């Protein structure tokens, strides 16, 4: 069965430090991959997406992610975090062909806490 795993429920980072949030997927074939962010009491917003090609994709607000087929991973990174990055981050995957509907499977989310 297809699945997305985010092994860290909570990550704490000091402001200005670098960040990596981990994501592993289990899919037959190579899925499309996404990172979404949820700020407190809001809906989810798309940070970045990977379809194919260059394994490193850039997103908004300085975030990037790297796809690894050998490791079945899609980790999110940021070089220097800001207090406003505090949020819950969701990794998601979709089969490459779903007849037009985006059947996203979400991970359980990682809560990012930024310490001053």
């Amino acid at each position: 069965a297809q699945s997305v795993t985010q092994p860290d429920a909570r990550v704490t980072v000091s402001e200005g430090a670098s960040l990596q949030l981990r994501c592993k997927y289990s899919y037959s074939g190579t899925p499309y991959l996404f990172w979404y962010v949820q700020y407190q009491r809001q809906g989810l917003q798309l940070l970045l997406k990977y379809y194919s090609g260059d394994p490193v994709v850039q997103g908004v607000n300085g975030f990037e992610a790297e796809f690894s087929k050998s490791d079945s991973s899609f980790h999110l990174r940021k070089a220097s975090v800001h207090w406003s990055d505090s949020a819950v981050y969701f990794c998601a995957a979709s089969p490459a062909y779903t007849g037009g509907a985006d059947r996203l499977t979400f991970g359980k989310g990682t809560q990012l806490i930024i310490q001053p």
Partner: protein
Amino acid sequence: EAAVTQSPRNKVAVTGGKVTLSCNQTNNHNNMYWYRQDTGHGLRLIHYSYGAGSTEKGDIPDGYKASRPSQENFSLILELATPSQTSVYFCASGLGANTGQLYFGEGSKLTVL
């Protein structure tokens, strides 16, 4: 700016009662979705729609119905609400075609007593 609006934002219901959660989008997207979000589970897809008049079952449809009377509106219906349906529900719209980009509403918190 893409906009997805949900109502009500908060709802308290009694066990066995009927609950309707409404969603309106001004994006002119064909596809709409209902998810529930629970601690330890992330987001799970309940129902989705390809357009007016269409509804499809997602991964956890049991106990829920959906209705898409128009391009703009998509409702989630709990005919006989149970405490296990206490959750935060999110509506989303999207262009489909595997873009993966969904636009979410701000959520509806449902408590079933």
